């Protein structure tokens, strides 16, 4: 059982235990859909939906699930919500759904979601699990937004489709291609680690 305060429970997902920068989970979608801010945002929203509902369901029925079949159960629950998110997006937001393509179904194997069920929702109350899910989702979405902002601004000169760099700027196309994704994330991770070391040595 977690002993943190509600506030700590929520905030940990934003930095200390940020799924991408500290836990290094969910990297596949992070790299794939951050070529434009709108895509990063949509993926963040979809993942938030799946994480919140999966956590709610799992922590509600945690006492009913025998340990041996817990992973299989979590997977079915997660896959159900991912399908709902995917269908919903295809029906109501077709252009974004097209851009994100097969990466929305991939939320199923996003280690963040399964990880939280195993590490938290199965052992905590519904209330706490919700807070945890919210924190993690927000941390994940913010990381996605950061990465996609950098990639879109440098790679296309736009932000959310609007031109932000002047005509003098020749876009670094590489940023929206795979190499750009890898390198940007690598540098961001290094910066995050560096900040962590600095704050730790100071205290």
């Amino acid at each position, binding site marked *: 059982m977690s002993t943190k305060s509600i506030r700590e429970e929520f905030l940990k997902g934003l930095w200390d235990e940020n799924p991408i920068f500290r836990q*290094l*989970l969910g*990297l*596949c*979608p992070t*790299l*794939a859909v951050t070529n434009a801010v709108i895509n990063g945002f949509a993926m963040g929203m979809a993942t938030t939906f799946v994480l919140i509902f999966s956590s709610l369901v799992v922590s509600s029925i945690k006492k009913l699930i025998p340990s041996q079949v817990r*992973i*299989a159960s979590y*997977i*079915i629950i997660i*896959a*159900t919500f*991912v*399908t709902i998110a*995917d*269908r919903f997006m295809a029906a109501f937001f077709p252009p974004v759904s097209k851009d994100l393509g*097969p990466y929305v*179904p*991939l939320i*199923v*194997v*996003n*280690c963040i979601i*399964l990880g939280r069920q195993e590490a938290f929702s199965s052992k905590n109350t519904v209330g706490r699990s919700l807070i945890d899910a919210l924190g993690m989702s927000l941390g994940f979405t913010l990381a996605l937004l950061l990465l996609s902002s950098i990639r879109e601004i440098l790679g296309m000169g736009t932000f959310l489709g609007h031109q932000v760099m002047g005509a003098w700027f020749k876009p670094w196309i*590489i940023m929206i*291609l*795979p*190499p*750009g*994704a*890898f*390198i940007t*994330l*690598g*540098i961001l*991770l*290094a*910066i995050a*680690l*560096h900040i962590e*070391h600095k704050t730790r040595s100071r205290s």
Partner: protein
Amino acid sequence: MEIVTLFFAAILVNNFVLHYFLGICPFLGVSKKIDSALSMGLAVTFVMSITAVVSWIINHWILIPYNLDYLQIVSFILVIASLVQLVEMFIRKISPPLYQALGIYLPLITTNCAIFFLALMAALRDYNFVQTVIFGTGSGIGFTLAIVLMAGIREQLELADVPDSLKGAGISLIVAGIMALAFLGFSGMIK
């Protein structure tokens, strides 16, 4: 798409790791030594080929005929989870030494996005049976290629003086970026 083209495209042009960003977790986690990288790669290729077959069967004999497309996500992931379990038990019985070599990596394969993506893509692109199997095997080999190359580079990096913050994931990702850049050169190879 022609079979040979499909095969080489899967390995080089549309490399699952360097182009589609799949299997990053094992890619970063298991690429420290060439041996383990090779073992993981082979295990993944093996599971991918079988998954290709089973997912195709389920998709074309059950899901599509009964208009159950929306169950694809749930079915495929369950298939993969079960297959990995079965493969693990099978290898443990048939060849204990092989199990020793591959064993620990097998459970990790369940969350390897590459396998799931494979099943989805083959269904999305409406590949026939042969195409699905070639696509699966080819992608697995592509993954193995990427992870072994990465391991080779990382073994060399052990001897280099990497700044503290970059150690581990940071430098690996940057290396991956350069590899991805190199692999971009393969685009256009297929016509």
